[in-house]
């Protein structure tokens, strides 16, 4: 899972939260085709949605 690398850089508890419910917002470098979209009020990268 893409999120795992990020979790390792965090303390366990907040990493756990991020892993379980926050993966969609994980840091990753935006790609050339990654557009910004609005879903339910969230301003997201398109790749955020692909990882849901």
């Amino acid at each position: 899972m893409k999120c795992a690398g990020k979790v390792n850089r965090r303390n366990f508890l907040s990493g756990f939260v991020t892993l379980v419910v926050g993966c969609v917002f994980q840091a990753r470098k935006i790609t050339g085709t990654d557009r910004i979209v609005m879903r339910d009020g969230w301003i997201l990268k398109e790749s955020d949605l692909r990882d849901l």
Partner: protein
Amino acid sequence: MIFDDAAQYRSSGFAPQVAIVGAGPAGITVARRLAKARIPCALLDAGGRVYSQESQDVYRGTTIGDPYFDLDATRLRYLGGTSGHWTGWTRFLDPHDFEKRDWIPNSGWPIGREAIEPHFASAREILGLPRFLDDLPISDDISRIHLIRSDPVRFGAKYAGELADSALIAVVLNTYATDLAAENGRVTAANINSNRRPAGRIDAPRFVVATGGIENSRLLLWSNETSSHPVVPEAAALGRYWMEHPEFEGGDIYVEDTGAYRAEVDGWAYFAPTPAAMRLNRLMNFHAVIMPRRYTGGKRLLAELACTAPAAAQWLAAKAGKNLSCGARVGLAWEQAPLPENRVTLSSDQRDYAGIPRVELHWKKGELERRTLLEGLKLFGATLATKDIGRIRIDEWIRNGGDYPTNQEMAGHHHMGGTRMSTDPTTGVVDGDCKVHGMENLYVAGSSIFTTSGYANPTATIVAFADRLGAHLAETRA
């Protein structure tokens, strides 16, 4: 010298070259600059040395339009003026705030920011401000900005000793300039009440009105009604183009990388659109602020969860007996388009103890502001996502065009416009030197001269302009 009333002042035989009406940040700054140039001035203040409800009552008034603060609560009427309310936040207006922007009606000052920049050092010294850091673009659209929260200067407390010791400044307390009298393009006197009784007039070769961003309009409007010759001969814009800085929370923010920005105070960090982004998106100026909540431990965990999975967080928080929200909120404060219908007028039926009409403030937020709020948050959110700093969820009332919340601060208590600066007397009251159009010896100081408002808390800009006016009066002495 400080006199407690007009009778004491008269008995001193003091002969001012300039009479300044209003001893707040602007009036005191003008007076100190004149004294530095060895020019004697009288500095009138309607209040005393400290707050009193009796004095404050004159500031009662009515607001028509959007909800606003009580007019006797949003400003202060005693030595030092509304600096007594200042929280210490400030920043100078941006260079682009002074420019004509064709998507903002009535924008464009007759001067650029470079006209006041020579006075920034004085303003910083007066206010005890450090040097502002340069804006730091983090994308093509958004810059990190430096908004200073200083130790707020209470002008009455800070400068009372200096004023008392000065032989060139005569502070006249408890003396309410109810109206100015004019003749043939010159103000000849200020009619006064002192200690709540009519007390004749005070004369001087030149006058500066510095009574605040609402009261300047009131004084000049009433003077135009009472004087045999107009005090503001071309009064089409008098009282109009009044502005505030609306401020509301606009969304939750899940902050991914706090290392990507430098927080100012209490973890707050400020951002603003670049001039290019404002131009491209036809937005007004604004600032967005990330406001983290001070949760730690388990609460912090739940708060982070609330950002990304609100329903689950609410369920967990309820189980834990907590009431927690997303870990941070995003707030916005923004520029208002200067519109003639936002204005100060005189009440037709409400008067103060001296018989002077109370203020009616007509104020509404407009469609361009609403657009700036939504599109500005989208721009900010897009930059945060692109840079992996975090993700914003814009509040529903903004997305769906709902009413503004009624449980928030609403605005910054920043009263601007009413005697705005313009080369055209039909759209402004003062010229580039803060002199009233068509008058030889009448000037205005304070944020009522602002042509546009930017988003910056105005105290620093007010003081820079007042220092500039003092220097101008010194250079042009008779």
